[in-house]
């Protein structure tokens, strides 16, 4: 048995002794250094750019501009972004390449003998701009006179990707409603703040491929995007991942890869074949890559006096920023999760993304789920309070079960475990018993606790999250296994897989699953990972999908390899491409369709202490309950839960990205506050249920995003329980809490 155990990950020792090589460490001695120049203009048309002064600086080797870009458009799901903004772009792209639409649109790549030389060259670029109106908010962008940021999409407004759900008889639903809860919820940006800023090295490999060594979340997708801009067939580009210092969705889209690929290709054409290294500072990273979407959700929920939901109307608007990135897909998830894990017989939901001249919104752990869950779960908690019903009981009254249709009028994939998860969580948290005593809370460590101003409360939330790609996006995962040995049974194996190890431990999980199915011991499983020259298409390390998808690809490859083994082939080679049941995009008018093939279900109970004097909040206890189907590596799994909870803790309490007139004004970890070791919940109790998923490998579902999704509404409910005040906007910084409490007379 290899799965269900918690062996030490193979990269743990090199991470603990400092020897492992991240992209920022593996810098060849002869490397040139690239600086990527941002426009610094949230919205402006480039009039001219001269590189003469930059090129004249000692140590500047070359300057790459839009004139060097074969195909000046890219994007993970829509080709709406110029690779380099410039006046002399080629014109192959539909998007106007002369316009900067956010402060970090890239305008040039300066290559120097040193970083200092490249930096000096960047400072010497001579650029003239004609400023255009800044559309700094959703409301600015939706104003009738707002200029269109993407006229190439043919739409008459900056809103795009409208989604609808029309289910049941809404009028009848409202007629049946005896209580109505209505509110508008504002959700903030969130910065990924992976501890390793973007870094990479590009060169032409021995087979002439433009090769980029760096970090990312999906090797073959990175390759496709780079190849598209470079005007090359995919196989002329190679993507290799070094050790990756965190991602969380923030490395799903391109950052430095295209600039590096362009530089390596053009310099090689000019006879310069030294490798080119680039790394971003923290400030460049925060300014230069996408964020969790901010947005606004209006929700109206009707129910009977017994608490049965009769009607739901929701309106979801997410700020896509300057370019789509994955906004259309994130929006789709928010659109689905805003009705929760509940039976909602009558519903009308309208959602859209809106282009603004701010930092793009994109993938971040939860992918639209946290925004949707905040609105519906806070509404449910308000409903429970209005009806004086236990919030757990209210959820059990409405939770979906196997055989139910989801909000899109398709039967939910088999394995619906919302009731089991809610019940287990409430039991483990002793939600209906008095709270256990805790240490007195002193928000200012040097002062004694002031018990007269602290209040305690508890909150509950539940949701569901898709595992794998949605809405008809082609889902697949490829694996290759080689079995070796001289006797009857294989004694060692090679696994070739593209799946990205972003810190979560997937490479160990894949080796454990390979050991489990081949019978080879774990220490004899050699992994060959994340190089498009040797591994197939893994799909991304996202959507809580990689354990599920890689596991199924490994099961298939092992079966093929065993067949070859029995046929006498040595080494016995098995290759497999796993494809799950197909999903569908939603009907444009009714939202009907089957958007997903698997869900994970989760519930959380949270206890807090609020200092009503200072507005500080301490989270005393978190019970985080997850149906994971099967725990492949229980210790790493708990690490995912604890890490996601603390990331969500920052989201709801402290992380406050300031965006003003299109500029991020606090792009530093001194001013954008992620939780430190003194800020975290006192106790996080991970409760793991193993209710096998019918499609999952060994029954496993995904888990990486689930503990994030319900945390904000659970904390908000606990703060209400403590103070009687609802907060429909967060983060709950002390100043916001104090303002809310004082407003309520506390």
């Amino acid at each position, binding site marked *: 048995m290899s799965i269900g155990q*918690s062996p030490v990950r193979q990269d743990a020792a090199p991470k603990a002794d400092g020897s492992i090589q991240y992209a920022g460490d593996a810098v060849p001695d002869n490397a040139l250094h690239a600086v990527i120049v941002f426009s610094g203009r949230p919205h402006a048309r480039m009039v001219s750019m001269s590189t003469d002064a930059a090129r004249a600086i000692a140590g500047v080797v070359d300057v790459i501009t839009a004139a060097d870009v074969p195909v000046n458009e890219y994007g993970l799901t829509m080709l709406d972004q110029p690779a380099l903004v410039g006046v002399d772009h080629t014109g192959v792209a539909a998007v106007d390449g002369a316009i900067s639409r956010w402060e970090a649109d890239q305008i040039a790549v300066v290559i120097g003998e040193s970083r200092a030389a490249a930096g000096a060259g960047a*400072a*010497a670029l001579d650029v003239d701009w004609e400023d255009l109106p800044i559309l700094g908010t959703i409301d600015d962008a939706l104003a009738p006179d707002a200029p269109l940021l993407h006229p190439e999409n043919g739409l008459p407004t900056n809103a795009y990707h409208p989604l609808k759900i029309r289910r049941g008889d809404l009028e009848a639903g409202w007629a049946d409603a005896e209580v109505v809860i209505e509110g508008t919820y504002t959700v903030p940006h969130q910065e990924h*703040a992976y501890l*390793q800023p973007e870094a990479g090295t590009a060169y032409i490999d021995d087979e002439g491929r433009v090769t980029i060594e760096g970090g990312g979340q999906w090797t073959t997708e990175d390759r496709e995007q780079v190849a598209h801009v470079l005007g090359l067939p995919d196989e002329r580009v190679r993507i290799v991942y070094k050790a990756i210092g965190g991602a969380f969705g923030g490395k799903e889209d391109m950052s430095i890869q295209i600039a590096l690929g362009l530089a390596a290709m053009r310099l090689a054409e000019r006879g310069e074949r030294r490798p080119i290294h680039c790394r971003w500072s923290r400030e460049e990273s925060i300014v230069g890559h996408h964020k969790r979407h901010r947005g606004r959700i209006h929700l109206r929920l009707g129910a009977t006096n017994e608490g049965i939901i009769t009607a739901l109307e929701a309106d979801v608007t997410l700020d896509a920023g300057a370019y789509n990135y994955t906004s259309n897909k994130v929006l789709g998830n928010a659109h689905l999760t805003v009705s929760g894990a509940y039976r909602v017989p009558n519903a009308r939901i309208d959602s859209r993304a809106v282009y603004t001249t701010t930092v793009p919104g994109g993938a971040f752990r939860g992918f639209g789920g946290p925004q949707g869950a905040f609105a519906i779960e806070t509404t449910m908690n308000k409903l429970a309070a209005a009806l004086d019903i236990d919030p757990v009981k209210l959820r059990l009254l409405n939770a979906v079960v196997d055989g139910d249709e989801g909000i899109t009028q398709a039967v939910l994939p088999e394995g619906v475990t919302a009731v089991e998860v809610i019940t287990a969580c409430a039991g483990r948290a002793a939600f209906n018993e008095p709270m256990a005593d805790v240490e007195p809370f002193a928000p200012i460590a040097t002062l004694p606790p002031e018990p007269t101003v602290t209040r305690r409360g508890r909150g509950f939330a539940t949701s569901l999250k898709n595992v794998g790609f949605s809405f008809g996006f082609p889902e697949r995962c490829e694996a290759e296994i080689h079995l070796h040995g001289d006797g009857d049974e294989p004694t060692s194996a090679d696994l070739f897989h593209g799946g990205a190890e972003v810190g979560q431990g997937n490479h160990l999980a894949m080796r454990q699953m390979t050991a489990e199915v081949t019978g080879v011991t774990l220490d004899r499983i050699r992994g060959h990972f994340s190089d498009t020259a040797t591994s197939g298409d893994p799909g991304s390390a996202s959507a809580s999908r990689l354990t599920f998808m890689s596991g199924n690809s490994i099961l298939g490859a092992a079966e093929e390899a065993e067949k070859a083994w029995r046929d006498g082939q040595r080494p016995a080679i098995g290759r497999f491409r796993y494809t799950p049941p197909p999903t569908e995009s939603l009907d444009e008018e009714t939202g009907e369709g089957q958007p997903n093939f698997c869900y994970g279900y989760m519930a959380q109970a949270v206890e807090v202490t609020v200092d009503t004097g200072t507005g500080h909040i301490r989270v005393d206890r978190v019970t985080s309950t997850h149906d994971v189907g099967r725990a492949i590596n229980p*210790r790493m799994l708990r690490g995912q839960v604890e890490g*996601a909870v603390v990331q969500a803790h920052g989201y709801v309490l402290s992380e406050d990205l300031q965006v003003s007139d299109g500029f991020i004004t606090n792009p530093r*970890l001194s001013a954008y506050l992620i939780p*430190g070791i003194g800020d975290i919940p006192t106790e996080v109790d991970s409760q793991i249920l193993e209710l096998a998923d019918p499609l999952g490998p060994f029954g496993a579902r995904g888990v990486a995003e689930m503990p994030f999704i319900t945390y904000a509404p659970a904390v908000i409910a606990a703060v209400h329980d403590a103070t009687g005040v609802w907060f429909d906007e967060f983060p709950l910084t002390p100043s916001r809490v104090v303002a809310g409490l004082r407003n309520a007379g506390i």
Partner: protein
Amino acid sequence: MSLGKEMSLKKMSRTHVNCTINGDEVDFLTTDATSLLDALRDEVGLTGAKEGCGTGDCGACSVLVDGRIQCSCLIFAPEAEGRHITTVEGMADGEHLHPLQQTFLEGAALQCGICTPGFLLAAKALLDENPAPTETEIRYGLAGNLCRCTGYDKIIRAVQEAAVQLKGA
């Protein structure tokens, strides 16, 4: 932005630095404007210390300077003259990992690993000073280090476990 221009145009004077790194006497050439972090990584070839922010906020670049935990990104390289520097590469005793390294890897107190060298050194500095810290003292001792993956709990447990092992040793 003009600073960069001046730096490349003006020929920077090179400073000779002698110090002890991980027990070895080391000398290297650097400039007055180079951080100890960059000198360790680029001149000495020790890449265990990471740049997570460059502004002293995250602690990923932490090293011990004469036994005290410091952000190497905030120290100019010439300030290392005559000092004893310990980086993560100097924690193991030959093949034998330091008990902290061992408890971190066995307890899954690391995920992506970028913050790990800094946490290990901060924990070493703490335990060298206070061999039996309370949980609160551990949190204070590690308050200068950020981690975005683990949620910190397993780091606290790993330090507690290492403290027990070191006490027994």
